[in-house]
């Protein structure tokens, strides 16, 4: 897996490849690793699929439970912190996950969460087995002044590089552009037939 998150002034990009591997076997060629909690809050997932599916439900529960209480809709930092608390509490029997939470509340936000409960805010970040490859591209080309479309292209190129050099990453990439009005999604494939 390779996932990429980029924050710029106009919004946040979340991107991820589509390969699910079990050891050296390709278990699924068309898996979705960019998921949405709301129209303007997305996550990317890397790690154990079972744990990730459970954590995704937990995240949606956190968001919707907050929405129906007197507190109202929770901020992105709020959701990320609540999830970090869950991961920290299960530190000694951890969920094997690395999650990016990105979106737009009153400003673009991007957080990286690791499986022990670490939470960091980032301008650009990559997760998963292909992250060293993707980070090489981001490190060279990221610029906080880039437009959302330029950031989307950068994210695509970062994941494509990882597809080419990391065997656990493959098929193609889903790129989500999240901005103040919602999100749009782009898909790209290495093999044009797909």
């Amino acid at each position: 897996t390779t996932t990429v998150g980029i924050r710029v002034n106009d919004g946040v990009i979340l991107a991820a490849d589509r390969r699910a591997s079990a050891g050296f076997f390709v278990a699924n060629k068309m898996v979705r690793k960019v998921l949405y909690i709301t129209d303007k809050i997305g996550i990317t997932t890397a790690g154990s699929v079972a744990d990730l599916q459970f954590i995704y439900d937990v995240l949606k529960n956190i968001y919707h439970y907050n929405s129906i209480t007197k507190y109202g809709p929770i901020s992105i930092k709020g959701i990320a912190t609540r999830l970090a608390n869950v991961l920290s509490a299960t530190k000694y029997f951890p969920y094997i996950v690395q999650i990016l939470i990105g979106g737009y509340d009153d400003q673009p936000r991007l957080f990286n969460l690791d499986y022990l409960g670490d939470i960091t805010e980032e301008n650009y970040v990559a997760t998963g087995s292909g992250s060293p490859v993707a980070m090489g591209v981001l490190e060279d080309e990221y610029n906080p002044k880039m437009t959302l479309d330029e950031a989307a292209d950068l994210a695509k190129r970062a994941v494509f590089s990882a597809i080419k050099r990391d065997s656990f990453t493959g098929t193609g990439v889903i790129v989500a552009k999240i901005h103040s009005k919602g999100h749009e999604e782009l898909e790209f494939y290495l093999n044009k037939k797909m």
Partner: protein
Amino acid sequence: TAVGLKVNDGIVLASERRLSYGGYVLSKQAKKVYKINKFLMAGAGIYGDLQTLTRIMNVEIKYYEVSTGKPISVHAAAKLLSVILYQYKVMPFISEILFGGVDEKGPQLYVLDPIGSLIEDNYAAVGSGARIAIGVLESEYDPNMSLDVATQLITKAIKASIERDITSGDGIDLAIIDKKGNYENKFIPY
């Protein structure tokens, strides 16, 4: 992953070009199908061991032919490789090898394990994607199929292993010898 196929009209050997170090793609241009003398050799395992074995075989076959004064048979060449592998039994070449060729006895294909077992077969697959490739061959192989159909089948088998085995990829090398002994090689990007 490397695959070999024998039909009445000749033999075909094929392999993909990826060289992996765990999950990392070290090279996308690792050729794993070799022509040695008038034979074909393909394999999987430690790439350096495979290269060493091809160099040894080139020399040993030449030595056999100059010392006996006659061409070596497919079986003798395969047995020679088997003996070399067995000599290194305590510190083996980490490799699974397909060895094939055509002589007066017709097309022949042999499979060798790291310590030199030698088994003749109609079709075989070795390496990380072997179990995926063999499934394709198993369902469609027919010894009466033409060399062209055999080439298509072997390509299909390698493509399946590229799709489902992460350590396979980056194009397909094919080598073909027909029953008259004519050699041909191809590269298919995939």
